[in-house]
Protein backbone atom coordinates (compact mmCIF):
# COMPACT_ATOMS: atom_id res chain seq x y z
CA UNK A 1 0.00 0.00 0.00
CA UNK A 2 1.11 3.51 -0.75
CA UNK A 3 0.40 6.36 1.59
CA UNK A 4 -1.28 9.38 0.06
CA UNK A 5 -1.21 12.72 1.85
CA UNK A 6 -4.29 14.83 1.17
CA UNK A 7 -4.50 18.66 1.39
CA UNK A 8 -7.10 20.28 3.65
CA UNK A 9 -9.62 21.22 0.91
CA UNK A 10 -9.90 17.60 -0.27
CA UNK A 11 -10.25 16.03 3.17
CA UNK A 12 -14.01 16.26 3.07
CA UNK A 13 -13.75 13.46 0.49
CA UNK A 14 -11.56 11.31 2.75
CA UNK A 15 -13.73 11.65 5.83
CA UNK A 16 -11.33 14.20 7.24
CA UNK A 17 -8.24 11.98 6.94
CA UNK A 18 -4.97 13.73 6.20
CA UNK A 19 -3.28 10.51 5.10
CA UNK A 20 -4.98 7.59 3.37
CA UNK A 21 -3.81 4.42 1.62
CA UNK A 22 -4.26 3.21 -1.93
CA UNK A 23 -2.81 0.68 -4.33
CA UNK A 24 -1.25 1.00 -7.77
CA UNK A 25 1.94 0.55 -9.81
CA UNK A 26 1.90 4.09 -11.16
CA UNK A 27 0.52 7.40 -9.96
CA UNK A 28 -2.31 7.01 -12.51
CA UNK A 29 -3.39 3.61 -11.23
CA UNK A 30 -2.94 4.80 -7.66
CA UNK A 31 -5.35 7.67 -8.32
CA UNK A 32 -7.81 5.26 -9.98
CA UNK A 33 -7.77 3.09 -6.88
CA UNK A 34 -8.00 6.16 -4.65
CA UNK A 35 -11.11 7.21 -6.57
CA UNK A 36 -12.85 3.89 -5.89
CA UNK A 37 -12.18 4.37 -2.20
CA UNK A 38 -13.03 8.08 -2.14
CA UNK A 39 -15.31 8.73 -5.12
CA UNK A 40 -14.77 12.04 -6.89
CA UNK A 41 -11.26 12.71 -5.63
CA UNK A 42 -9.56 12.00 -8.96
CA UNK A 43 -11.63 14.64 -10.77
CA UNK A 44 -10.42 17.20 -8.29
CA UNK A 45 -6.80 16.37 -8.99
CA UNK A 46 -7.05 15.73 -12.75
CA UNK A 47 -8.88 17.61 -15.51
CA UNK A 48 -11.26 16.25 -18.18
CA UNK A 49 -8.33 15.08 -20.31
CA UNK A 50 -6.98 13.08 -17.41
CA UNK A 51 -3.92 15.29 -16.84
CA UNK A 52 -3.00 16.67 -13.43
CA UNK A 53 -4.60 20.11 -13.12
CA UNK A 54 -2.25 23.03 -13.71
CA UNK A 55 -2.44 24.28 -10.15
CA UNK A 56 -1.85 20.89 -8.52
CA UNK A 57 1.53 19.41 -7.75
CA UNK A 58 1.96 15.71 -7.04
CA UNK A 59 5.07 14.51 -5.25
CA UNK A 60 6.37 10.95 -4.95
CA UNK A 61 8.70 10.78 -1.97
CA UNK A 62 9.18 14.53 -2.29
CA UNK A 63 9.88 14.54 -6.06
CA UNK A 64 7.53 16.45 -8.36
CA UNK A 65 6.07 13.99 -10.91
CA UNK A 66 6.31 16.68 -13.61
CA UNK A 67 10.05 16.09 -13.48
CA UNK A 68 9.65 12.30 -13.31
CA UNK A 69 7.30 10.40 -15.62
CA UNK A 70 4.16 12.44 -14.94
CA UNK A 71 1.20 10.14 -14.21
CA UNK A 72 3.26 7.15 -15.39
CA UNK A 73 5.70 7.65 -12.53
CA UNK A 74 6.03 4.27 -10.79
CA UNK A 75 5.05 3.90 -7.16
CA UNK A 76 5.50 0.98 -4.81
CA UNK A 77 4.44 -0.10 -1.39
CA UNK A 78 5.91 2.17 1.25
CA UNK A 79 6.17 5.22 -1.00
CA UNK A 80 4.58 8.48 0.06
CA UNK A 81 2.56 10.47 -2.47
CA UNK A 82 1.56 14.06 -1.63
CA UNK A 83 -1.09 16.12 -3.38
CA UNK A 84 -0.28 19.78 -2.87
CA UNK A 85 -2.08 22.79 -4.32
CA UNK A 86 0.51 24.95 -6.09
CA UNK A 87 -0.26 27.84 -3.82
CA UNK A 88 -1.66 28.73 -0.48
CA UNK A 89 -4.84 30.80 -0.38
CA UNK A 90 -5.27 33.89 1.79
CA UNK A 91 -2.84 36.70 1.53
Amino acid at each position, binding site marked *: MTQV*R*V*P*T*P*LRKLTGGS*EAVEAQGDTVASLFADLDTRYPGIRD*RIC*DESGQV*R*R*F*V*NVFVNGEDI*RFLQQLDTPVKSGDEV*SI*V*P*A*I*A*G*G*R
Partner: protein
Amino acid sequence: MAAHPAQARFFAGPTAPSEGPLVLPSVLQLIGNTPLVEIQRVRDGVPDGVRLFGKIEGFNPGGSVKDRPALRMVQEGMRQGRLTPGKTILDSTSGNTGIALAMIGAALGYPVTLVMPANVSRERKQMAAAFGAELIFSDPLEGSDGAILLCRKILAADPDRYFKPDQYNNAANPLAHYETTGPEIWRQTAGRVTHFVAGIGTSGTIMGTGRYLKEQNPAVQIVAAEPEDAFHGLEGLKHMATSIVPGIYDEARIDVKLGIATDEAYDMVYRLGREEGILIGQSCGAAYVAALRVARSLREGTIVVLFADFGDRYLSTNLWLGWQQLP
Protein backbone atom coordinates in the same frame (compact mmCIF):
# COMPACT_ATOMS: atom_id res chain seq x y z
CA MET B 1 -5.54 43.12 -38.40
CA ALA B 2 -7.32 46.18 -37.04
CA ALA B 3 -5.21 48.95 -35.53
CA HIS B 4 -4.70 48.51 -31.84
CA PRO B 5 -7.20 50.83 -30.12
CA ALA B 6 -4.51 52.08 -27.76
CA GLN B 7 -2.45 53.45 -30.66
CA ALA B 8 -4.51 56.59 -31.23
CA ARG B 9 -4.21 57.50 -27.59
CA PHE B 10 -0.52 56.75 -27.58
CA PHE B 11 0.13 59.20 -30.38
CA ALA B 12 -1.85 61.83 -28.54
CA GLY B 13 1.36 62.21 -26.55
CA PRO B 14 2.70 61.16 -23.21
CA THR B 15 1.10 62.25 -19.99
CA ALA B 16 2.50 65.28 -18.14
CA PRO B 17 5.59 64.57 -16.05
CA SER B 18 5.03 64.27 -12.34
CA GLU B 19 5.01 67.57 -10.54
CA GLY B 20 5.90 65.93 -7.25
CA PRO B 21 9.14 66.39 -5.34
CA LEU B 22 12.31 65.24 -7.08
CA VAL B 23 13.68 63.43 -4.05
CA LEU B 24 11.79 61.50 -1.42
CA PRO B 25 13.09 60.96 2.10
CA SER B 26 12.04 57.30 2.18
CA VAL B 27 10.93 54.49 -0.11
CA LEU B 28 7.78 54.30 2.00
CA GLN B 29 6.60 57.54 0.45
CA LEU B 30 6.28 55.75 -2.86
CA ILE B 31 3.40 53.67 -1.50
CA GLY B 32 0.06 54.40 -3.14
CA ASN B 33 -0.92 56.74 -5.97
CA THR B 34 -0.82 53.88 -8.45
CA PRO B 35 -1.91 54.37 -12.06
CA LEU B 36 -5.26 53.48 -13.57
CA VAL B 37 -4.90 52.00 -17.06
CA GLU B 38 -7.74 51.40 -19.51
CA ILE B 39 -8.11 47.87 -20.83
CA GLN B 40 -8.63 48.28 -24.56
CA ARG B 41 -8.66 44.88 -26.20
CA VAL B 42 -9.61 42.14 -23.79
CA ARG B 43 -13.28 43.10 -23.74
CA ASP B 44 -15.02 40.00 -25.14
CA GLY B 45 -18.25 41.58 -26.30
CA VAL B 46 -18.56 44.21 -23.59
CA PRO B 47 -20.78 47.06 -24.89
CA ASP B 48 -18.94 50.22 -26.00
CA GLY B 49 -20.61 52.24 -23.25
CA VAL B 50 -18.74 50.25 -20.62
CA ARG B 51 -15.15 51.20 -19.84
CA LEU B 52 -12.77 48.91 -17.98
CA PHE B 53 -9.78 50.13 -16.00
CA GLY B 54 -7.05 48.29 -14.14
CA LYS B 55 -5.63 49.84 -10.96
CA ILE B 56 -2.08 48.61 -11.21
CA GLU B 57 -0.88 48.01 -7.66
CA GLY B 58 2.31 46.35 -8.80
CA PHE B 59 3.76 49.87 -9.01
CA ASN B 60 3.95 50.07 -5.24
CA PRO B 61 7.59 49.81 -4.10
CA GLY B 62 7.06 46.37 -2.53
CA GLY B 63 5.37 45.29 -5.73
CA SER B 64 1.81 44.81 -4.51
CA VAL B 65 -1.32 46.37 -3.05
CA LYS B 66 -0.22 45.00 0.32
CA ASP B 67 2.21 47.87 0.85
CA ARG B 68 -0.78 50.03 1.74
CA PRO B 69 -2.27 48.02 4.64
CA ALA B 70 1.16 46.89 5.85
CA LEU B 71 2.33 50.51 6.21
CA ARG B 72 -0.91 51.59 7.85
CA MET B 73 -0.81 48.71 10.35
CA VAL B 74 2.82 49.42 11.27
CA GLN B 75 2.13 53.16 11.63
CA GLU B 76 -0.85 52.41 13.86
CA GLY B 77 1.21 49.97 15.96
CA MET B 78 3.88 52.65 16.49
CA ARG B 79 1.28 55.30 17.32
CA GLN B 80 -0.41 53.03 19.87
CA GLY B 81 2.93 52.07 21.44
CA ARG B 82 2.46 48.39 20.58
CA LEU B 83 5.44 48.47 18.20
CA THR B 84 8.45 49.85 20.02
CA PRO B 85 12.20 49.66 19.34
CA GLY B 86 13.53 46.18 20.04
CA LYS B 87 10.33 44.42 19.04
CA THR B 88 10.02 42.15 16.03
CA ILE B 89 7.18 42.42 13.53
CA LEU B 90 5.58 38.94 13.22
CA ASP B 91 2.74 37.83 10.96
CA SER B 92 1.40 34.98 8.88
CA THR B 93 1.13 35.63 5.19
CA SER B 94 1.10 33.77 1.92
CA GLY B 95 3.40 36.33 0.39
CA ASN B 96 2.61 39.88 -0.61
CA THR B 97 1.91 41.15 2.88
CA GLY B 98 5.11 39.47 4.02
CA ILE B 99 7.15 41.24 1.35
CA ALA B 100 5.50 44.54 2.28
CA LEU B 101 6.19 44.07 5.99
CA ALA B 102 9.77 42.99 5.25
CA MET B 103 10.36 46.12 3.17
CA ILE B 104 8.75 48.43 5.72
CA GLY B 105 10.60 46.76 8.59
CA ALA B 106 13.88 47.26 6.73
CA ALA B 107 13.10 50.90 6.02
CA LEU B 108 12.14 51.62 9.63
CA GLY B 109 14.72 49.41 11.34
CA TYR B 110 12.48 46.70 12.79
CA PRO B 111 13.30 42.99 12.45
CA VAL B 112 10.56 40.98 10.71
CA THR B 113 9.57 37.32 11.12
CA LEU B 114 7.09 35.79 8.68
CA VAL B 115 5.19 32.52 8.83
CA MET B 116 4.19 31.25 5.41
CA PRO B 117 3.12 27.93 3.90
CA ALA B 118 6.10 26.18 2.33
CA ASN B 119 4.37 26.20 -1.07
CA VAL B 120 4.24 29.97 -1.62
CA SER B 121 6.11 31.03 -4.72
CA ARG B 122 9.90 31.00 -4.64
CA GLU B 123 10.08 34.66 -5.71
CA ARG B 124 8.02 35.64 -2.68
CA LYS B 125 10.26 33.78 -0.26
CA GLN B 126 13.35 35.26 -1.89
CA MET B 127 12.06 38.82 -1.89
CA ALA B 128 11.06 38.69 1.78
CA ALA B 129 14.45 37.19 2.61
CA ALA B 130 16.23 39.82 0.51
CA PHE B 131 14.67 42.52 2.70
CA GLY B 132 16.16 40.71 5.69
CA ALA B 133 13.08 38.97 7.05
CA GLU B 134 13.32 35.67 8.92
CA LEU B 135 11.04 33.05 7.33
CA ILE B 136 9.29 30.20 9.11
CA PHE B 137 7.46 27.68 6.92
CA SER B 138 4.22 25.91 7.78
CA ASP B 139 2.90 22.64 6.29
CA PRO B 140 1.96 23.22 2.64
CA LEU B 141 -0.93 20.77 2.98
CA GLU B 142 -2.56 23.04 5.57
CA GLY B 143 -2.63 26.15 3.35
CA SER B 144 -2.70 29.67 4.72
CA ASP B 145 -4.81 28.62 7.68
CA GLY B 146 -1.91 26.44 8.76
CA ALA B 147 0.35 29.51 8.74
CA ILE B 148 -2.19 31.50 10.75
CA LEU B 149 -2.32 28.79 13.43
CA LEU B 150 1.48 28.33 13.59
CA CYS B 151 1.93 32.10 13.88
CA ARG B 152 -0.49 32.21 16.82
CA LYS B 153 1.60 29.52 18.56
CA ILE B 154 4.85 31.42 18.03
CA LEU B 155 3.30 34.59 19.40
CA ALA B 156 1.81 32.82 22.42
CA ALA B 157 5.23 31.40 23.34
CA ASP B 158 6.82 34.88 23.63
CA PRO B 159 4.14 37.59 23.37
CA ASP B 160 6.30 40.51 24.55
CA ARG B 161 8.87 39.97 21.85
CA TYR B 162 6.55 40.59 18.93
CA PHE B 163 4.24 43.08 17.30
CA LYS B 164 1.71 41.17 15.22
CA PRO B 165 -0.10 43.40 12.73
CA ASP B 166 -2.68 40.60 12.26
CA GLN B 167 -3.91 41.69 8.85
CA TYR B 168 -6.97 39.45 9.07
CA ASN B 169 -8.35 41.25 12.13
CA ASN B 170 -6.71 44.69 12.11
CA ALA B 171 -9.02 47.60 11.29
CA ALA B 172 -6.00 49.50 9.94
CA ASN B 173 -5.96 47.06 6.99
CA PRO B 174 -9.29 48.19 5.46
CA LEU B 175 -8.61 51.70 6.77
CA ALA B 176 -5.57 51.97 4.49
CA HIS B 177 -7.84 51.37 1.52
CA TYR B 178 -10.54 53.68 2.86
CA GLU B 179 -7.92 56.43 3.14
CA THR B 180 -5.93 55.84 -0.06
CA THR B 181 -7.19 53.28 -2.63
CA GLY B 182 -10.80 54.51 -2.49
CA PRO B 183 -10.05 58.24 -2.83
CA GLU B 184 -7.53 57.57 -5.62
CA ILE B 185 -10.10 55.64 -7.66
CA TRP B 186 -12.74 58.30 -7.05
CA ARG B 187 -10.35 61.02 -8.22
CA GLN B 188 -8.91 59.05 -11.15
CA THR B 189 -12.37 58.34 -12.55
CA ALA B 190 -13.61 61.86 -11.74
CA GLY B 191 -16.37 60.25 -9.70
CA ARG B 192 -17.63 58.18 -12.61
CA VAL B 193 -16.80 54.75 -11.18
CA THR B 194 -19.87 52.51 -11.16
CA HIS B 195 -18.26 49.18 -10.17
CA PHE B 196 -15.25 48.21 -8.12
CA VAL B 197 -13.96 44.67 -8.59
CA ALA B 198 -11.27 42.96 -6.51
CA GLY B 199 -10.24 39.54 -5.37
CA ILE B 200 -10.89 38.60 -1.79
CA GLY B 201 -8.10 37.47 0.52
CA THR B 202 -8.10 39.21 3.88
CA SER B 203 -10.96 41.25 2.37
CA GLY B 204 -9.19 44.48 3.44
CA THR B 205 -9.08 45.91 -0.09
CA ILE B 206 -12.72 45.37 -0.83
CA MET B 207 -13.95 46.37 2.65
CA GLY B 208 -12.05 49.68 2.82
CA THR B 209 -12.23 50.74 -0.83
CA GLY B 210 -15.86 49.69 -1.01
CA ARG B 211 -16.83 51.66 2.06
CA TYR B 212 -15.21 54.84 0.72
CA LEU B 213 -16.76 54.54 -2.72
CA LYS B 214 -20.22 53.78 -1.31
CA GLU B 215 -19.98 56.89 0.85
CA GLN B 216 -19.31 58.98 -2.25
CA ASN B 217 -22.03 57.26 -4.26
CA PRO B 218 -24.21 54.56 -2.70
CA ALA B 219 -24.97 53.21 -6.19
CA VAL B 220 -21.38 52.03 -6.74
CA GLN B 221 -21.43 48.24 -6.93
CA ILE B 222 -18.80 46.28 -5.03
CA VAL B 223 -17.86 43.01 -6.72
CA ALA B 224 -15.71 40.33 -5.08
CA ALA B 225 -13.93 37.57 -6.98
CA GLU B 226 -13.23 34.40 -5.03
CA PRO B 227 -12.02 30.93 -5.99
CA GLU B 228 -15.03 28.85 -7.06
CA ASP B 229 -13.72 25.93 -5.07
CA ALA B 230 -11.78 25.36 -1.86
CA PHE B 231 -9.13 23.49 -3.86
CA HIS B 232 -7.69 26.15 -6.13
CA GLY B 233 -4.56 27.78 -7.50
CA LEU B 234 -5.30 31.46 -7.00
CA GLU B 235 -2.49 32.58 -4.73
CA GLY B 236 -3.66 35.33 -2.42
CA LEU B 237 -7.36 34.53 -2.60
CA LYS B 238 -9.55 32.81 -0.07
CA HIS B 239 -12.54 30.54 -0.55
CA MET B 240 -14.46 32.14 2.28
CA ALA B 241 -16.91 29.30 2.98
CA THR B 242 -14.09 26.89 3.83
CA SER B 243 -11.52 29.25 5.41
CA ILE B 244 -10.94 30.93 8.73
CA VAL B 245 -13.10 34.00 8.11
CA PRO B 246 -11.14 37.26 8.71
CA GLY B 247 -12.47 39.43 11.52
CA ILE B 248 -12.52 42.45 9.21
CA TYR B 249 -14.76 40.66 6.68
CA ASP B 250 -18.37 41.82 6.44
CA GLU B 251 -20.28 40.10 3.67
CA ALA B 252 -23.00 42.78 3.81
CA ARG B 253 -20.53 45.24 2.24
CA ILE B 254 -20.30 43.18 -0.96
CA ASP B 255 -22.98 43.50 -3.63
CA VAL B 256 -21.89 40.63 -5.86
CA LYS B 257 -19.58 37.69 -5.17
CA LEU B 258 -18.43 35.64 -8.14
CA GLY B 259 -16.64 32.28 -7.98
CA ILE B 260 -13.85 32.00 -10.54
CA ALA B 261 -12.17 28.81 -11.76
CA THR B 262 -8.39 28.69 -11.51
CA ASP B 263 -7.96 27.78 -15.20
CA GLU B 264 -10.09 30.74 -16.31
CA ALA B 265 -8.01 33.09 -14.18
CA TYR B 266 -4.72 31.71 -15.48
CA ASP B 267 -5.89 32.02 -19.10
CA MET B 268 -6.87 35.63 -18.44
CA VAL B 269 -3.38 36.37 -17.10
CA TYR B 270 -1.88 35.06 -20.35
CA ARG B 271 -4.29 37.13 -22.46
CA LEU B 272 -3.74 40.40 -20.57
CA GLY B 273 -0.01 39.91 -20.96
CA ARG B 274 -0.15 39.26 -24.70
CA GLU B 275 -3.04 41.45 -25.74
CA GLU B 276 -2.62 44.44 -23.42
CA GLY B 277 1.02 44.34 -22.37
CA ILE B 278 -0.04 44.12 -18.75
CA LEU B 279 1.52 41.18 -16.93
CA ILE B 280 -0.31 40.60 -13.67
CA GLY B 281 -0.66 37.87 -11.05
CA GLN B 282 -3.29 35.14 -11.02
CA SER B 283 -5.57 36.76 -8.44
CA CYS B 284 -5.81 39.74 -10.83
CA GLY B 285 -6.75 37.36 -13.63
CA ALA B 286 -9.61 36.11 -11.46
CA ALA B 287 -10.70 39.68 -10.70
CA TYR B 288 -10.70 40.57 -14.39
CA VAL B 289 -12.74 37.49 -15.31
CA ALA B 290 -15.29 38.66 -12.73
CA ALA B 291 -15.18 42.20 -14.15
CA LEU B 292 -15.92 40.96 -17.67
CA ARG B 293 -18.88 38.92 -16.41
CA VAL B 294 -20.34 42.01 -14.80
CA ALA B 295 -19.45 44.26 -17.75
CA ARG B 296 -21.26 42.10 -20.29
CA SER B 297 -24.54 42.58 -18.41
CA LEU B 298 -24.32 46.40 -18.55
CA ARG B 299 -25.08 48.99 -21.23
CA GLU B 300 -22.81 51.60 -19.73
CA GLY B 301 -20.54 51.92 -16.78
CA THR B 302 -17.04 52.57 -15.49
CA ILE B 303 -15.52 49.46 -13.98
CA VAL B 304 -12.33 49.61 -11.93
CA VAL B 305 -10.55 46.30 -11.34
CA LEU B 306 -7.84 46.09 -8.76
CA PHE B 307 -4.71 44.36 -10.10
CA ALA B 308 -2.99 43.44 -6.85
CA ASP B 309 0.48 42.67 -8.23
CA PHE B 310 2.55 41.92 -11.31
CA GLY B 311 2.95 38.44 -12.78
CA ASP B 312 6.72 38.37 -12.59
CA ARG B 313 6.64 37.08 -9.02
CA TYR B 314 4.91 33.90 -10.23
CA LEU B 315 7.26 32.85 -13.00
CA SER B 316 8.55 29.96 -10.89
CA THR B 317 5.03 28.70 -10.15
CA ASN B 318 2.50 26.53 -11.91
CA LEU B 319 1.20 29.68 -13.60
CA TRP B 320 4.28 29.40 -15.80
CA LEU B 321 3.32 25.87 -16.85
CA GLY B 322 0.46 27.34 -18.84
CA TRP B 323 2.64 30.07 -20.35
CA GLN B 324 5.00 27.39 -21.63
CA GLN B 325 2.13 25.60 -23.36
CA LEU B 326 0.94 28.69 -25.27
CA PRO B 327 1.43 28.59 -29.06
